[in-house]
């Protein structure tokens, strides 16, 4: 969360949670030979999203790309960081303000860009139930809508570019119903509560990923079956894009072989099963419709509970999500330990299994990155850096949209850490209440 690769906190972690991007220089290396007008890029980045997005856009500009033709997604969903993933930097208020800066600046400057991927995946991975995942994700989405409207933005200007990201877990029908309920609830909110007039504002577009947490270290090849079934639920549930996990998920970063099998799984579904040819094929099923209705009802009940606490930010500070997720995850573990919930290969049907090769990150990577950073700091213009960081501080302090300042900082080769340090001074850092 906004530490350069040579920061003491980064020790042992460089290159292990995605690619290390400390400045525009890293972005330029990463996209060497790739035309940003001809690809779309999705970046799973949250608390430093503004800065990293700016580095990508600066890279595109340097290649002569027209930002109006550049497309992609930044995850940029800080609320779920406080709730689940915990990669926050600043307290909720200023963090949400940075997100709304992207809601405001994005449609006007990079119209093909999905500036947010409101996520439930991580909430589910943290141990929530399917209904909690649904409710907390949509509640986050609604919170962002309210904040954007508070700033005076026009709902139809930004709502069409909001996207979502859900988990695909083991309970097959429940996951399909969850996605169906999500679409219906969101459409109703946008049309009936927020008064959006553009049909594209009503549409919940979503990415989905198979549940990493459901994959086992024991008999790892069996995970290929789990992922295929979870992916099937995602397609039948109408996800707009799909990530299938690798079978070695519980062991290490994916090997190329494991990632390839995950890709082939999607290709089999896409090209051999025919299920993607029909929209919502399970509509009308007595069971699915009943499940969908039930999930919608329970989701709306959660909305009431969260609103009664004063909204998502207040609920976060009150420990509401921590308690719900903590209880749900503990309950699930007790069920597994008691044998009430079977995990094949783990608490039943155990047996010997072959060792699988592991993907390891060469520790040399950290050194290489450190030297690259030293060079960037040496070769850039320090006056440009100072000017850009001052501009960023001013924008942050005076309530201006920070994106132009982030873009200038990117072009000046300010590092991520330098930019986040400026903001840490202005906004403070968040310490979550310690709850078990």
């Amino acid at each position, binding site marked *: 969360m906004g530490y350069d690769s040579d920061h003491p906190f980064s020790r*042992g972690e460089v290159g292990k949670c995605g690619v290390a991007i400390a400045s525009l220089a890293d972005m330029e290396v990463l996209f060497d030979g790739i035309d940003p007008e001809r690809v779309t890029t999705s970046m799973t980045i949250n608390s430093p999203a503004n800065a990293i997005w700016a580095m990508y856009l600066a890279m595109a500009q340097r290649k002569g790309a027209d930002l109006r033709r550049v497309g992609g997604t930044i995850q940029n969903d800080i609320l779920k960081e406080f709730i689940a993933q915990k990669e926050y930097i600043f307290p909720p208020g200023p963090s949400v303000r940075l997100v709304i800066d992207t809601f405001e600046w994005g449609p006007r400057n990079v119209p093909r860009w999905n500036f947010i991927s409101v996520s439930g995946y991580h909430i589910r*991975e943290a141990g929530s139930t399917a209904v909690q995942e649904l409710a907390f994700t949509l509640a986050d989405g609604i919170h962002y809508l309210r904040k954007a409207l508070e700033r005076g933005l026009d709902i139809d200007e930004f709502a069409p570019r909001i996207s979502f990201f859900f988990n695909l877990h083991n309970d097959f029908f429940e996951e399909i119903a969850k996605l169906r309920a999500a679409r219906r609830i969101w459409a109703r909110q946008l049309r009936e509560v927020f008064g959006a007039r553009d049909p594209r504002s009503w549409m919940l577009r979503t990415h989905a990923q198979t549940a990493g947490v459901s994959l086992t270290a024991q008999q790892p090849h069996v995970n290929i079956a789990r992922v295929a079934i979870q992916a099937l639920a995602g397609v039948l549930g109408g996800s707009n894009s799909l990530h299938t996990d690798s079978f070695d998920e519980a062991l290490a970063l994916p090997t190329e072989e494991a990632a390839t099998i995950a890709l082939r799984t999607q290709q089999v579904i896409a090209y051999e099963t025919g299920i993607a040819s029909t929209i919502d094929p399970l509509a009308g099923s007595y069971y699915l419709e009943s499940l969908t209705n039930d999930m919608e009802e329970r989701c709306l009940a959660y909305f009431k509970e969260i609103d009664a606490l004063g909204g998502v930010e207040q609920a976060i500070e009150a420990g509401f999500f921590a308690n719900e997720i903590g209880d749900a*995850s*503990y309950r699930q573990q007790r069920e597994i330990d008691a044998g009430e919930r079977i995990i094949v290969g783990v608490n039943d049907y155990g047996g010997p299994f072959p060792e699988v090769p592991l993907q390891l990150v060469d520790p040399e990577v950290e050194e290489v990155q450190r030297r690259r950073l030293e060079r960037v700091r040496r070769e850039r213009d320090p006056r440009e850096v100072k000017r850009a960081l001052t501009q960023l501080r001013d924008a942050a302090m005076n309530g201006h949209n920070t994106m132009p300042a982030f873009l200038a900082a990117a072009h000046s080769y300010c590092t991520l850490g330098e930019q986040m340090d400026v903001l840490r001074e202005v906004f403070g850092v968040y310490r979550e209440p310690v709850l078990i």
Partner: protein
Amino acid sequence: MARTLRVLIAKPGLDGHDRGAKVIARALRDAGMEVIYTGLRQTSEMIVNAAIQEDVDVVGLSVLSGAHMHYFREVLEGLRARDAEDILVFGGGIVPDQDVPRLKELGVAAIFTPGTSTQEVIDFLRRVPARQEEGQT
């Protein structure tokens, strides 16, 4: 009479995956142990300080980021430097099997990887004697 086992559960580094740490903390507490959870973003120094300040018998580190070798080493060295190497160190998370022997050589008592039941952890810790008898300082 042996006092209740005091356990520190810690999350070193930037890794925010706290589901396992929290579930273990609750399970140990329900099993009658005294559990202190450090919360996230702990440096090795903070963990060692907390372990000594809280006078724990055991420190459990949860690491899912791949930085386990680094943090276990630093915490063990830190405890040793403060004459507290009798505090037992164990852990869990995403740790490849091949790293477990190396961690044990460093002094880690046990590593619990995915698929471990909470009962296994409880049973392991129940066999750990408390560092001091009740009533001693």
